[in-house]
């Protein structure tokens, strides 16, 4: 006989996870079930192949980059904590959350979401989106639908518009400035059900 609370008790450091990510226990439980469903072979962690079973991800042009976002710094596995922490980026903003001066930036704040998106572009993590990196992203998003010249002209124009200090690359600050008016809170958030 299983009870609904036994699932939660299997998760270590639950309290800290809730505190850090802001998910409710019900959400965490659902995410845990999802984690288990993805974890073929019950290893307790996920590897890149486990994400391969998500069909919608495979049809997503930047699917591989999204999977890569879970495995930071050359790691080959992602445990449940890291899994939830990454997904927490997509929680809607908490309007009522009081800002404590010494607390770390919440995972789902505007800056954190921007940083997450920036890292999707900046694959070598040098803090700048170079022209090559931009070309790479454009290539995966458009593949064979446009010619190489068109891709290059798009990349050049984008850098021209966003690059303020003239180094032919987009730093995080320039990225942030160019997306000032975009409603990131809405576009990089999912509606979580209760």
């Amino acid at each position, binding site marked *: *006989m*299983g*009870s*609904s609370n036994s699932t939660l008790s299997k998760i270590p450091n639950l309290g800290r996870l809730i505190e850090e990510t802001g998910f409710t226990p*019900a*959400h965490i*439980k*659902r*995410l845990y*079930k*999802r984690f288990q*469903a*993805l974890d*073929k072979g019950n290893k307790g962690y996920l590897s890149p192949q486990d*994400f*391969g*079973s*998500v*069909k*919608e*991800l*495979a*049809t997503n*042009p930047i*699917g591989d980059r*999204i999977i890569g976002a879970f495995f930071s710094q050359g790691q080959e596995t992602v445990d449940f904590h890291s899994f939830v922490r990454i*997904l927490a*980026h*997509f929680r809607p903003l908490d309007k009522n959350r009081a800002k404590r001066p010494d607390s770390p930036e919440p995972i789902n704040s505007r800056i954190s979401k921007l940083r*997450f*998106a920036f890292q*999707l*572009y900046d694959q070598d993590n040098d803090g700048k989106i170079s022209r090559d990196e931009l070309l790479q992203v454009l290539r995966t*998003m*458009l*593949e*064979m*639908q*446009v010619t190489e010249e*068109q891709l290059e*002209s*798009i990349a050049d*124009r*984008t850098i021209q518009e*966003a690059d303020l200090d003239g180094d032919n690359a*987009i730093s995080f600050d320039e*990225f942030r400035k*160019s997306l*000032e*008016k*975009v*409603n*990131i809170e*809405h*576009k*990089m958030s*999912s*509606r*979580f*059900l209760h």
Partner: protein
Amino acid sequence: MGWFPSPFDNLLCMLLGISFTVWFTLLLVFIIVPAIFGVSFGIRRLCMKTLIKIFEWATLRIERGAKEKKHLLYKPYTNGIIAKEPTSLEEEIKEIRRSGSSRDLGAASQEFELSDIFYFCRRGMESIMDDEVTKRFSAEELESWNLLTRSNYNFQYISLRLTVLWGLGVLIRYGFLLPLRVTLAFTGVGLLVVLTTLVGCLPNGRMKSFLSEKIHLMCYRICVRALTAIITYHDSENKPKNGGICVANHTSPIDVIILASDGCYAMVGQIHGGLMGVIQRAMVKACPHIWFERSEVKDRHLVAKRLSDHAEDKTKLPILIFPEGELLKSGVHSSAIAPLARASGLCMWAAGIGLWEASFSPAFLFLGLSSGTCINNTSVMMFKKGSFEIGATVYPVAIKYDPRFAEAFWNSSKFGMVNYLLRMMSSWAVVCSVWYLPPMHKEEGEDAVQFANRVKAAIARQGGLVDLLWDGGLKRDKVKDTFKEEQQKLYSKMLVGAQEDRSRS
């Protein structure tokens, strides 16, 4: 001093003898004889109605109890964790750009923006959290509880009455129903083998096919009763006729038994060794089934030829095919036959028939397809086109199980075949509906894929199942790259149109 039986022993022996006799008489009268003649006393339906009332009471009791104790009720997962917005790529990207730019956006200035990636990123994350297809592969969660703890996560101690009821249920199911069913299963399979071998000795002719039909039907009916399957057949006037192909959606390995107990079909599959092979060889003596040697299975053309020859011959029985399917490793198949051979006859029968690197379901196809994955009852996966290239008349059949009585879905990555059959046999009953749909032909100018989709849509519509434009094989294989192209095409249409405008101006 010798051992002499005490009066108590005598009494015990007598009681045992009497109970066995009673048991077998009941078995014979109430189950086997009606199976032979195809009639039913209606006892099962009566039990079904009673059980439904009990289940409803049990569910109300749980909900009330949970409210009183303020426990978190684990709501059905069917709603998922996130609400997905049904907007298209174009709309969303336009919205993102509109909010980010103060320029007046006309059709000409839809150029690439750094924020475009947000759309793909969010969609990717949402699909990781909650994915239409993977959801299909976990068992549906019930709105009501059917006194089987395996299908309910909310069961905690709520009231004495509920626990007593549950305990009674366990007693009845494991103590009475399970042995009964296992006996029946053995009887059914045993009779099948013996009788078909006998009939096989007769010369080919009308008498032989008449008898073999009767025997097959009778044995399948016994097997059906072994599962206590309560089947409602709709539209029997559309039942498959000779010289056609019968095509059905596939939820569980017992689909075959359910269909075969109502009509005679030619099965398609691979010959196995051991007890399974004995059954297959016996069956083929009485009735022309299509069994392939393992070596023949690799030769697609041979397979296709044999099947089309059979289909064209109007005197032969309709071929039964479940066109959904996926490839499993061949090692899985051969290593599992030995333990299966030790299990009940029903297991072996259902497990044995398969094509190619077979799984344990009698789901099979030809022309490059494979044996079945079991799919959660609510959707009909993309039918593979091979079955539809043959050009014969196709008789679609829709099968839908009622989840209130037993979870018919077989999660082949979680449970083995024996486990699955035991669960089936220790559930209350297997209630399902079978709809025979009117026959379909491939029309002029329609290719196999379109025909397959048409058949699939008809089946899904009838059974109230959700029509998923997806391939059952994707559960384990990687998606083909062609699917990515669709998204890329959509996106590029937005951009390239802008580029061309710019280059023109």
